[in-house]
C-alpha cells in the first residue's frame, strides 16, 4: 500500500539540498534576476515587517489583506 505524505513544497524546491554551495549561489542569483520581472507590479508592496503597502492608503485601490484562498479585503480604520 502506498503511504501518502503531506506535501508542502515541490520536489524542485526541496532539491536545493542536493546543490553544492556554488550551485546554490548561482541558482539563487539567477532566480533573483528572473524575479525582477515583477518589480513594477509589487513596487508598493512589503514582504516583511509591519507595513503592507506604501501610501497613499486612501486611493480607493488598496487591498490590505488578500488571502490566497479567497479575497478577504479589509482596510485600516
Amino acid at each position: 500500500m502506498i503511504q501518502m505524505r503531506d506535501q508542502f513544497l515541490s520536489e524542485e524546491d526541496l532539491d536545493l539540498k542536493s546543490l553544492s554551495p556554488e550551485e546554490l549561489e548561482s541558482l539563487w542569483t539567477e532566480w533573483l534576476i528572473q524575479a525582477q520581472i515583477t518589480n513594477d507590479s509589487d513596487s508598493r508592496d512589503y514582504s516583511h515587517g509591519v507595513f503592507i503597502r506604501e501610501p497613499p492608503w486612501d486611493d480607493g485601490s488598496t487591498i490590505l489583506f488578500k488571502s490566497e484562498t479567497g479575497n478577504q479585503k479589509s482596510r485600516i480604520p
Partner: protein
Amino acid sequence: MSIYLQLTRQFNHGRLRAILSGGQAVVMHRLAIMSKDGDWILREDEESMRHVLAVLDANGAHYRFGAPLDIRWLSAGWSAHLEFMGHGLRVRTDFVTRPPRLSAERLDGLWREQDAKNQAPFLGARDLVETKKTNREKDYAVIGELARGMGDIDDQIMCSRSARDLMELAAQRPDRVIALTCQRPVLAAIAEGPEALEVALDAERRRLMHANEARLAMYMSAAEPWARVWHEISREMEAMPLAAAHSLMVDRAGTKLPFTVPGGWP
C-alpha cells in the same frame, strides 16, 4: 555570491550585528527560493544602526516608507525599509530588532547562540517558524517543511503542519504530545483522528493569520499621520545622501510616527 549574503557579511564586518531572516533564511535552510527581498534582525544598539546605515549608504540605498532605522522605533516592533538598485537587481532591505512572536528572552538567547565568527548567520529553524506565522498562506508551507527537518521531537510536535506527521509523532512519543498540548491546543485533536486533526490544523492556521492581520492593522493605524506626509518628505530626501536623509526622517518621524504602539511587540 548572493547579494543578500554579501550584505549580511558587510553588516557583520568587525562585529555581529545582523542575522538573516525571512525568505533568504529559507534559502539558507535549503528549502526553497521564494522571496526577492532581504530581511534581517539587527542587534538593538546605536553602533549597529550606524554601521548598517553606512553600508546601505555605500550601496546607494534610499528609504522606503517605514520607521527610521532607529532603536527608539525598532524597539517597539516597528520595521525599517530601504532599497537600492545594484547588480541588476532591485534590492530591498527590511529590518527589525524585535521580530514578532519571539520573546525578549528568546531574542537574548538568539544573540548569545550565534557564533561571533560567522559573518553570514541566519535564523535557526525554530525561531524562523515563529516569524513565519504571518497572514500569508505560503508561509505555512514553509513552516511545514521546516518542522520536518527539526532534530528535536518537541520542536517537531510544536511546529508540524501535517496531520499525518503529527499522528506518527503521537504514536512514537504520546508522552510528549500530552505534555505539549497545553502549549499547542491543536494537539488535543490527535486523539479524534486524522480528519478532525486536519480541521483543527486549518483552524489554527486561520487564527494565526488573523492574529497577524490584527497586529499589522495596529501598526498601520498608528502610522497613518506619517503616511499622510510621506510623499512630501520622500521628495525632500530624494537628492540627499542617506546620512542626511536619515537625519531628516528621524526629525520628521519624531512628530508623526509614535515610538510605541499599544498592544504592538511582541
